[in-house]
């Protein structure tokens, strides 16, 4: 599996947020084993041609979420992260964001049944990836 992070400088989302979202998607999909190292802040900043601080901020955010352990001179190390039980407020936020996204897709012409099928397929894939 090729582990590639892609960002788009023209997108409205800030670059650090795109890095966090891209890495989190890979971490949720268990693309990294606990103990594996991510590229150094310097290396990732060079490859993406963005400021070091942008990558450092993204790594810090993922560390706060419990995905990474940041060690001085050792870089970012992936850690085993137990799935926490989602709080009711979190669940409500998630449903709200999902509804907004689905509404946007339908407003832009995507068929309702296609949105539903995509969501089902996505849920099925995530469930398979989560199963050891």
């Amino acid at each position, binding site marked *: 599996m090729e582990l590639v992070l*892609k960002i788009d*400088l023209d997108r409205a989302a800030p670059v650090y947020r795109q890095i966090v979202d891209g890495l989190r998607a890979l971490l949720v999909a268990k693309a990294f084993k606990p103990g594996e190292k991510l*590229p150094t802040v310097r290396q990732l900043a*060079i*490859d993406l041609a963005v400021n070091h601080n942008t990558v450092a901020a993204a790594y810090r955010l993922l560390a706060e979420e419990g995905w990474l352990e940041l060690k001085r001179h050792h870089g970012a190390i992936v850690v085993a992260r137990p799935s926490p039980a989602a709080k009711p407020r979190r669940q409500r936020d998630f449903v709200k964001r999902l509804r907004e996204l689905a509404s946007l897709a339908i407003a832009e012409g995507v068929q309702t049944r296609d949105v539903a099928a995509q969501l089902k397929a996505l849920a099925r894939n995530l469930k398979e990836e989560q199963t050891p």
Partner: protein
Amino acid sequence: MNLTTIFVSTTLTTLAMGLGLFLFVARRTRPEIFFAVTVNASFRDSAAAREILRKFNHAAVFWTVLAAIVAALAFLCAPATALIMSCAAELVQLAGTTMALVQARKKTLAHRTEPSSEREAQLTPNDSRPAGGWLGQLGPFLVLAILALVVGIQWPQIPARFPIHWGADGKPNDWANKSWASVFLLPIMGAVVCGLFCALSLSLQRGIRRIHASGAQRAHEDALLRCVLWIFLAVEYFMAVLVGGVAFLPLMISTDPGHDTFPTSIAVILAIAIPSLAVVAIVIIAARSKESGSRSSAGERAGVHAERKPVGDRTPDECWKGGGLFYYNPNDPALWVEKRFGVGYTVNFARCGAWFLLGGVLLFGVLSIMLPRLLLK
């Protein structure tokens, strides 16, 4: 062979090589880069691109012929004047062709395309082992240390005064007195050169941007980088053996008048032939490694999606100065980026590291001229 002949023949050879190099580098760019400007991949096959390239080629030939005439006139002059005219000929070619390069870039800017705003990075850590491993990197220093040790053991056999420079006639024209400095300065300077190359290799390996994160183009980029690192290591070993061998000269060269000649002509021919062969080898290796992906063939260019925004080399056009030869981008954390012409890499002059490297090389150049004068007299 007199000095004038040596100056003129050397100049004519380098002018011919320079012309070949200029014509080669103008063609050898990424498919979406033309005269250091980001364009659509199909542009270079258009009539406008062919016209720009044709005019540049004509200008490069014109300035080289003019420079060759200046160099040929030096045949009629005394050695001192011939040397000045040879240097002037080189400058004529360099300045003239650089002007042509700037002109070609200006014309290409009219066809500029906005590059893709997408960026990608491989998330598996890069291979950070130096070429040949750490033991392989240590080798040149060991070679120098062993050769210096052997010379040290044979210290009593070294004459009190020995030649260190020879004229065109092969007769020595400069001598040094036996001392630690005169015998061991060269191996020490050799070690410094090897150290500089070692530092350069490490900085290149850790400070370079890969343009593609995956696929065949990424594999080509990695192959080229490995190739460059192995060339650096080969240069280190060559320097160690050469400098170590020269350190043996006080033991090998006779100091008796009449028997103290040195084959200067052979040394000059070797001095031209070995770097020339090295340049040819680098060009062949770079071409075989498909230099950073797709610089050469139309077949590979066809693989680039014309309908997508060009990827280019992920550096902004406006940050390339001097006709596209120098890169200056304070917003780019990379110290090394791929050159927009020809083979290999160049530094980002907005990074302090670039100036440290340049300063280190210049300082070494000055010290290598000054130190022997100060210590050997």
